[in-house]
Structures are given as structure tokens and as C-alpha cells.
């Protein structure tokens, strides 16, 4: 079973978000980067579990510059076999998806796994786009994935509930909570990751369809109005008559 796991780099969840260059660029100063949690905790770990149970390989794919290599090495330390970095600063999801799809077309995988969204741009776009470029079925927001031969049984979140679907390989899936438990790399994994292959591939040509014109921080919150614990009814009164929301 050949599994491709797409990972994105994202700022650590405790990062202070700030912008530079007249609010046109994210300020990376002092920011720690991690593997996007959905990609790491769910897509990667489930991919590894499937490999452990059925044999095969897990390849990591990242679209980004050389500064992403430490993040990619962490995915190798968790247990992936090899990694590919497509050497391009990602600027929009369609461009990233095109690179992933071009690579996946040339190297044929049984499944392409990614996270349901990134915690920086919150797009929920790449998985569906890759599926469209590859003309493969797309299962989004999957919370369980089991394989029997070539047939996957997947639980997915849909509007208002969950459903179980079946699909034969190849397919593209975006992973959500429930699919696996996060793994912490051990010392052996970290040592092994240093010598695992990380191949750098040049991007194919494409044109951007979107660009970020500027960023904005939300306005600061005013002071919190305190209500006495002895009279909680006053809270409802304020919500109804002052905030006018209930």
C-alpha cells in the first residue's frame, strides 16, 4: 500500500499573530513552526498505522522552501519512510494542490491523505482540489479509515451527522479528529529521520488565482463587565436588554 501524506507547516498554536511590511506579510519573528496538527495527528499517524498493518510505504509531501526541512524531518521521525519537498513558497491553495497532484500523477499512490484544514489559512481546500486534479473520489472530514484489501471503509462528517462510505483505491481523503491518536517521536525515530531520503523537486508551472492583499488584527476587546455570582439573573437581563442577543 503506497500512501502519500501531505503536510503543511503552521505556526505553533501559542504563537502571537503579528504582521509586517505594512500588514502584508505574516511576522515569523520568534514564531515556532509545527506540522499542521490535522496533518500530523490524524493523516500521518493513520497512514503509518495502515502501513504497519498492511505493509507498504508512507511518503511525506510538502510544498515549501528549504526552511521547512526541520518540520519535514519531524514527520520522518514519527515514522514516515521518505519525504519529498516541492521547492516553492506556497501562495495559494490551487497552486499547492496542482503541485501535489502533478507529483502524485507521476508516482501513483493508493491514497493521498491530508488534514481537513490548516490552522493558519483555514482554507479546507487542498484535499478537494488534489482529488479534482487527479479525477479521484474525495472523502472530506474523515474520522475513521479502515482498509480491507483495496476497499476503504470511511466514516465522514457530513452536514448534521456522520455517515459510513466505501471506496476502492485510489482516493483522496482529508482527516479530522477521531482518526488516530497523536504519536510522539522517540529517540530512535529522530536518529533514523536524519538519514531518511528527503528529495527536493522543482515545481511545475502554474499561475496564481488568488493573492493576499493585506492582513488585519481584530479590534481589542473592551473591559469585561462583571456580574455578581449572587444574582446570575442579572446576566440574562444584560444579554437581553443591553447586548440584545437573547
Amino acid at each position: 500500500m503506497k500512501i502519500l501524506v501531505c503536510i503543511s507547516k503552521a505556526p505553533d498554536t501559542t504563537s502571537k499573530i503579528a504582521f509586517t511590511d505594512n500588514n502584508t506579510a505574516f511576522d515569523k519573528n520568534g514564531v515556532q513552526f509545527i506540522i499542521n496538527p490535522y496533518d500530523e495527528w490524524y493523516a500521518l499517524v493513520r497512514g503509518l498505522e495502515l502501513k504497519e498493518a498492511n505493509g507498504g510505504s508512507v511518503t511525506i509531501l510538502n510544498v515549501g522552501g528549504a526552511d521547512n526541512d526541520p518540520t519535514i524531518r519531524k514527520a520522518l521521525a514519527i515514522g514516515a519512510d521518505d519525504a519529498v519537498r516541492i521547492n516553492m513558497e506556497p501562495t495559494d491553495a490551487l497552486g499547492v494542490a496542482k503541485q501535489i497532484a502533478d507529483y502524485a500523477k507521476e508516482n501513483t499512490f493508493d491514497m493521498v491523505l491530508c488534514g481537513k484544514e490548516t490552522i493558519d489559512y483555514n482554507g479546507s481546500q487542498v484535499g478537494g482540489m488534489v482529488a479534482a486534479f487527479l479525477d479521484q473520489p474525495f472523502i472530506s472530514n474523515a474520522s475513521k479509515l479502515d482498509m480491507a484489501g483495496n476497499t476503504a471503509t470511511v466514516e465522514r462528517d457530513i452536514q448534521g451527522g456522520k455517515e459510513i462510505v466505501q471506496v476502492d483505491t485510489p482516493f483522496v481523503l482529508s482527516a479530522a479528529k477521531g482518526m488516530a491518536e497523536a504519536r510522539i517521536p522517540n529517540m530512535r525515530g529522530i536518529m533514523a529521520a536524519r538519514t531518511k531520503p528527503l528529495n527536493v523537486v522543482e515545481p511545475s508551472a502554474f499561475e496564481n488565482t488568488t493573492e493576499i492583499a493585506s492582513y488585519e488584527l481584530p479590534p481589542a476587546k473592551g473591559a469585561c463587565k462583571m456580574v455578581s455570582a449572587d444574582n446570575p439573573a442579572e446576566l440574562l437581563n444584560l444579554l437581553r436588554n443591553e447586548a440584545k442577543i437573547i
Partner: protein
Amino acid sequence: MSILVYANTAKNKVHKSAFEAVSYGAQIAEKSGDSVTAVVVGNADDLDTLGKYGADKVIHVTNDKLNDFQPTLIAQAIQQAAEENNASIIVFSHDLSGKSVAPILAAKMNAGIVTGAVDLPQMDGDFIVKKAVFSGKAYAHVKVTTATKIISLTPNALEKKEYNKTASVEDKAYELGDSRLKVVEQKIQSTDLPLTEAELVVSAGRGLKGPENWGMIEDLAKALGAATACSRPVSDMDWRPHHEHVGQTGVAIRPNLYIAIGISGAIQHLAGVNQSKVIVAINTDPEAPFFKAADYGIVGDAFEVVPKLVVAAKAMN
């Protein structure tokens, strides 16, 4: 030219988020002078109500292949409707259906897409859409440079506008490919609205001590007509189901009211809820970080405060 809106249905009714998307499309059309076409896949017995929120026309796609949720085929149907109607902008709701279908369509049409819009696009000169990024810690203004543009709208982000038009309904049996995806079982939850679309949310954290204490949280939610949510440790310990987990690595929501009970207000939790219009924190610890993000607060023990709130909320109704 026209604005095309994918109007999602559930249980034979047009979904609430679909009305928001149609109204959003209609507000764009007001500026651009286009007409608004809603595309509905599957059955709904209230298609005429789409006119109320601004649809001029409804395309009802009747192909049986769409009885199950088939994102690829829905994208094919919408693409045909878009081409037939010369659509320049295609609007989705950024709900679980939109998140699945819109990116497929964007790739198939090579259309620039902005997901999770929180405001109407700016259209004089460049076409720019505002969306939340960094899990609600900031906004980005995204410029779309293609002729066909796709936008998905964050649920509960904008007030719906009423237009009271009468929309004509056209049945279409578009030709669709075959899908390898088979739905074998549906587990529809009984909760009425998905958390992302709820206007009022009552949420609780580890301060509640154990799952057996959620009765008062549910009572309060019921009395207010609110949905329930929880912090991540609470769902990790299986005190509550995963779909209630809000935050940076759970569901991001922007209800009109978010009441946080016994939740400390960690940065990862706030990331998923700080776009709520009004935030209430109830916590025994006056130094809890949640009070810095809240509009109203009560320093007190949830086990004393919440039952009193339930009584007061019931009395209010």
C-alpha cells in the same frame, strides 16, 4: 452575467446556511447588477422560500445519482449550471458540504476561491474578500484574480437580508459521471443545528469535574435554545462527543453568544471562539484568561451559578 449560489438541503428542507448564502449572493448582485440563481441538489419541499432571500431563479438538479452526498458529482452539476448561466461568482456556505464541494469546483474551473468569507466582497477595482485566518486570531483580505470567482461564506457571519422575490424553479437532469464512492450507512444526529450554525452556544470545560455534571449545562442550553460545546480535554476524556470540541484544533464557531463555563480560556480554545459576537465567562478563578476575552463575566462556582441561571432562563421564556 449571474451569481450562482449552491443551496444546501437537509431533511427535505433548504438549510439555514443556504439562505445565508443566497442572501449573500443577492447582496453582491445588488452591487453588480447581476441576477441570482440558486442551485439545489436533491429534494426539498420549500424551494420557493429561496426567493425570499434573493434568488431570481432556482435550478433544481434532479439526477438520482445525487441522492447520496457525492461532492464530485455535485461539483459537476454546479459547473454545468454555472456555464449555462454565465456565472461570474459562485457562492457556497462554508459548512461541511461547501468545504467538500467548493474546492473540487475551483480546481475543475480553475477559479480563484476564498473560503470562510466574513464580509461582502469589495468590488471597485480589485475583487477582494475578507476572511478569518490563524483560527480567528486575524483576518486576511484576499484578492481573486480569475474571471470566475468562488466564495464560501462562514455561517452566521452576516445578517440575512430579505428580498421577497418570487423565484422560478427549473428542473434539470444534468448528465453526471459515475462515482466510485458508496454510502453504506447514515448516522444523522438528532441535534437540530450543527454547532457552526448555532446562534447561541453554551460550552463547558474541565471545571465541571465529570460528565455526570453536564445535566445543568444541557438544561441551560435548552432553556436558552442554544447548542452545547466543550473544551478539548473534555472531549479527549470522552466526557462529551468529539463534534462538540471547539477551538483551534476543533470546530471554529462564531455564534451571537458564547457562554464558557469552567473553561480557563487557553489561547487554543479562544482561537476557535473569539469571533463570537458576545462572550460570557463563568469561572471560580478571577484570574482566568477567559475574562480578558469576555464581554460579561461571573466569578463564581458553576455548581451554584448555573442552576440559578437555568431557573432565571426558564422564567424569562
